[in-house]
């Protein structure tokens, strides 16, 4: 109990003193997660809509497959990126491995299934009557789809927030493909892992507290936007 309290005090101290290492880690965590989340959202919204609105053979199988990928371990994704982008790998010439780019790539792979699955689920939750009414009022198929998307916007927003949270809090991908270089690819989560390994448990816990605080602030902001 003592340790938790000390960790909390340490967290406040690190924030107030604008500790450069913590600021670096926070900046990197936020940036990488934000970029990954934005790109994934831009990819998954059209893709999810396409999958939901179109009829095609194997649609249910595809949806099942996407949901299965929810359980993809972060370490597996890290390994995949490692094998492909390591200098010794097929795409090694790009020199992406051990840079923030690899981390973004890995996180996009990580959160795509989740975001895709939840967007499809969000769209499925809209009453068919909405698009049917729109069509009967003269809307084209595309316009009717847009209206359905609009109806599902809160659930879609929740899917995006979920994707961001997953990317922000993960450690398997970031650690495996980023290299955990201080000030360059060291996120809050990989720093927590390192500090624990090095025996600085209090610092590791303080970092965890800071991560939750940042997540809280972001969620409050996004919530206000969602409700206005």
């Amino acid at each position: 109990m003592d340790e938790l309290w000390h960790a909390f005090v340490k967290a406040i101290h690190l924030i107030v003193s604008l500790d450069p290492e913590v600021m670096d880690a926070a900046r990197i965590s936020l940036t990488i997660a934000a970029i990954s989340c934005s790109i994934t959202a831009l990819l998954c919204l059209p893709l999810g809509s396409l999958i939901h609105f179109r009829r095609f053979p194997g649609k249910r199988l595809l949806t099942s497959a996407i949901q299965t990928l929810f359980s993809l371990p972060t370490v597996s994704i890290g390994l995949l990126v490692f094998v492909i982008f390591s200098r010794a790998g097929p795409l090694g010439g790009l020199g992406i491995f051990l840079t923030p780019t690899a981390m973004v790539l890995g996180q996009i792979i990580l959160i795509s299934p989740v975001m895709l699955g939840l967007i499809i689920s969000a769209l499925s939750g809209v009453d068919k009557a909405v698009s049917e009414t729109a069509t009967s009022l003269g809307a084209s198929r595309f316009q009717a789809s847009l209206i359905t998307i609009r109806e599902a916007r809160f659930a879609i927003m929740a899917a995006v927030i979920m994707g961001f949270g997953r990317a922000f809090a993960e450690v398997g991908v970031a650690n495996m493909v980023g290299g955990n270089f201080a000030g360059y690819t060291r996120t809050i989560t990989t720093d927590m892992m390192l500090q624990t390994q090095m025996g600085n448990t209090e610092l590791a816990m303080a970092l965890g507290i800071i991560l939750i605080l940042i997540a809280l602030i972001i969620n409050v902001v996004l919530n206000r936007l969602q409700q206005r």
Partner: protein
Amino acid sequence: MRKAILVILAILALVGLLVGSISCGGAEGEGVLTPKGRLRVATTTSLYDTGLWGYLEPMFEKKYDVELDILYAGSGIALEYGRRGDVDVLTVHSKSDEEKFVADGYGVARVPFAYNYFLIVGPESDPAGLKVKGMTPEQAFKKLYANPGSGKFVSRGDGSGTHSKEKAIWKAAGYPDYEAVRTAGSWYIDAGSGMGPTLLKASELQAYTLTDEGTFLAYKGRQEINLVPIVNQGSILLNVYSVIVCTKNTKQEMATNLVNLLTSPEIQELIGKYGVKDYGKALFNPCAGVPEPTS
């Protein structure tokens, strides 16, 4: 629809701001796909845990105006990164693996630059009776194996330099089949973790373990480690750190600069003094340019 667009725009704006702040704040302004001006070093954990790298890194970065990216890994994975060409330089302590690495053409040369000693640590109560004057590490291991259950042993089990040394001691003690040792009984615990967590596990279980002196001292200062030195004499306990430039690296000149720095007289002297202030004794002995110590 408007709200969704607003939110996406807000996120993109935030992202733009952050990306902008990085590229302005970052010193080099290199492309993201091909980082220039960064030298990658894979280091064994003990050089990092003792704080030595934290001490040397700014010196090197300042002198050669380059960003040093230090990858914290066990010697095993560090050598693998070197084989794949993902890092430029290695600082490791696994002599036989290093020699093979260079022989196979992955490393330019093995350059020893510092040494200290491993030691066997264990509970103060010393249940297996290993803390005896004149007991060698090989004899201690033999005693543990011959009396299963007299004492527990926690192994790094992670292919690190320390793990290699442990296997070497088992071999010297008369047990060349490591797999047999690993599965000898519940007294032998394969932890699969770094030195710090392994020490913590050994402390929790009140077991024996092999550790390098630097990390042991560094951790005793930071955490509750209820372990004491049990066996610290024996030439097999020699722990030599080497720096190796990887043949697949992309920054030959800068990599050589690092080797030169580590073996330079000034830095050798600093290495020899490192730790006295915080731990009361030097954690490393310099040895560049002299015949490699054998005991």
